[in-house]
């Protein structure tokens, strides 16, 4: 998708000014892991609430008034729900302030910005989703989008990994996808022993079968058969991907995770026969303005906020080695 395509998209500008945020209300907060929360939020202005549309992969600028703005993708699917969701890890000034907010608090939001996953290109193909940690958030928007239009796509395989069982996000989604017989879910952790001992997914506590498996996970046993024949493997995502070895034929791989994971995943996909055009990723940079003006999110001549955040590997490989 090019810049000119974006200009044709719907814009939802507050007072006609692209930098002004809409006021949003937080409706629900899910603590995914000790440092990661998902916020369900909605427009305060009911008219915009009805009119607002977005596509999977787009992002927004979220702000806590008086603290600042930060970009996050919209992690819910446009096919679902009467609200929007975003997921963030507590890492800096803005994310800390967001984590301190409660249900009912007001935040600023402007967007949607950026391009989106190329739905047209994905339809009819086998899809391999490769996610790591909180990188599942943008994939999740697309996964639900795909599953809600299941007949338009081929096989769906999800390879998701986190550092430890406690760091697995969206357990309720993993469970739901696991229950879906048309989806192959493979979950892996870098190491089985969780650094954080407490049970994790508070909202879904007790419902998550993955979590209930944790107690049975033993050291030295790297592949564990769970009760409903799902795997909780041990190993880094690129390694697991290599073991699973999905076919590149009529397939697209959609990758999102920490930069180090992305960096090691592309070569593995290449080995498996995926061409750079078959590899899609969504990137994260320090996007301050979100609209291609403030200058800091570029990789070469590509501005992640303006030209992305969704790219094929073919688009970014020229610059990625030394700046990503």
């Amino acid at each position, binding site marked *: 998708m090019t810049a000119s395509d974006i200009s044709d998209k719907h814009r939802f500008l507050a007072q006609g000014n692209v930098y002004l945020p809409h006021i949003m209300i937080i409706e629900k907060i899910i603590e995914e892991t000790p440092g990661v929360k998902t916020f369900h939020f909605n427009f305060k202005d009911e008219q915009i609430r009805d009119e607002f549309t977005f596509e999977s992969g787009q992002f927004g600028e979220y702000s806590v008034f008086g603290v600042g703005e930060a970009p996050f993708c919209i992690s819910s699917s446009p096919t679902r729900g009467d609200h929007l969701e975003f997921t963030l890890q507590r890492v800096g000034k803005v994310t800390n302030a967001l984590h301190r907010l409660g249900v009912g608090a007001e935040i600023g939001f402007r967007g949607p910005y950026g391009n989106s996953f190329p739905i047209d290109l994905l339809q009819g193909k086998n899809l391999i989703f490769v996610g790591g940690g909180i990188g599942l958030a943008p994939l999740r928007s697309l996964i639900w989008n795909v599953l809600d239009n299941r007949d338009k796509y081929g096989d769906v395989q999800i390879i998701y990994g986190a550092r430890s069982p406690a760091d697995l996000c969206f357990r309720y989604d993993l469970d739901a996808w696991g229950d879906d017989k048309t989806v192959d879910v493979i979950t892996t952790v870098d190491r089985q022993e969780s650094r954080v001992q407490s049970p994790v997914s508070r909202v879904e506590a007790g419902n998550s079968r993955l979590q209930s498996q944790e107690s049975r996970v033993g050291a030295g046993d790297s592949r564990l058969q769970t009760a409903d024949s799902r795997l909780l493997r041990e190993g880094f995502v690129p390694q697991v991907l290599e073991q699973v070895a999905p076919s590149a034929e009529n397939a697209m791989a959609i990758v999102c995770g920490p930069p180090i994971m992305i960096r090691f995943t592309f070569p593995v996909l290449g080995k498996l026969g995926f061409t750079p055009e078959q590899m899609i990723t969504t990137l994260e940079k320090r996007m301050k303005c979100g609209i291609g003006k403030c200058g800091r999110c570029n990789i070469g*001549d590509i501005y992640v906020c303006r030209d992305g955040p969704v790219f094929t590997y073919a688009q970014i490989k020229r610059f990625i080695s030394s700046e990503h």
Partner: protein
Amino acid sequence: MGIKKIAKKDIGNLLHQWGKDYTILVPSTEGDTALTVHGSRFTVHGLWDGSDVNLDWHRNTVKPPKSNFLPPMEEMFRFQKGKEGHSIELPQEERRQLIFGIRPCDARSLRLLDMIFTDVYQDPYYLPKRNSAVLVGLVCLRPYDSCFCTSLGISPGGSDDVDLLLTDIGDEFLIEEISDKGKRLMELTAGLEDATEDDITKASEAKEKAYGKVTRKIDTQHLKDKLLSSFEDETYWEKVAAKCIGCGICTFLCPTCYCFDITDEKVKKQGARFRCWDSCAFSLYTKMPMENPREEKWQRVRQKVCHKFEFYPMSFDVIACTGCGRCIRLCPVNWDICQTLEGIRDRGGDHQ
């Protein structure tokens, strides 16, 4: 097209007339002493105080005119938390600006900035100021030894990007109408004389002479491709970056650098969101909590050079440099972008 002239001593009169409709910004020294910085006259486009004409127009300003359109800091909006939640209030629109004595290179820089601020999304702070402003250009008769505008298609006497163009012809300024906006302004201006043939000849001679004074050159042919093929050459970039101290002078005072930061301030229940200059020379500029794509100084230096000479041409088909030479003469360690580009040109011939 009318060509007029005005005696230098009557400039105050002229500015008074224009001052009714515009905020007048003139090149002026701060105070009464003509101080210099690193051998550059310390002048800025500052508010004309309306009193006597104390203009120092001989040499280009230290602060580029972008600071009047993209100010070092600007309030984007104010917010307030009341019983009904947050409310947002936009700042009032400012008065139209008239930039008096802008150099052709700096006038071009604004056109380069227009590209980014109209790209995909219209910038609601820059554009209103820019569109309502009048640029009264001044032929640059004394370019610095660090100037290389002619290598970038700009002439010290160029009129492409201004509304009116003044030429110093001794005791008088020749005034040429360039754009429609300039024409309209002239129609409302009283007290101008028609220029004589002699004046016009004098002016064109002066322009020609000024062109010859820009002796520094860079070769921009295939530069974009050479930069692209040198992008991964860490050794080269480390070498050129070694003496850079990573301050923000070259970017903040570059007429075409536009990077900014957005930041909030709140006192009790109200506050404001600001936008202020930021620079790719600062390591925090790209810093994210978990990683920094441009951690190393050489990466940041590379970004600065490539943004102007490689990425901007890829996006907008034009080099984002006007050859004004500020980054060279204001640099505290004399880091010279021309030398860096020369080094790129001299590197192997993997491009035709």
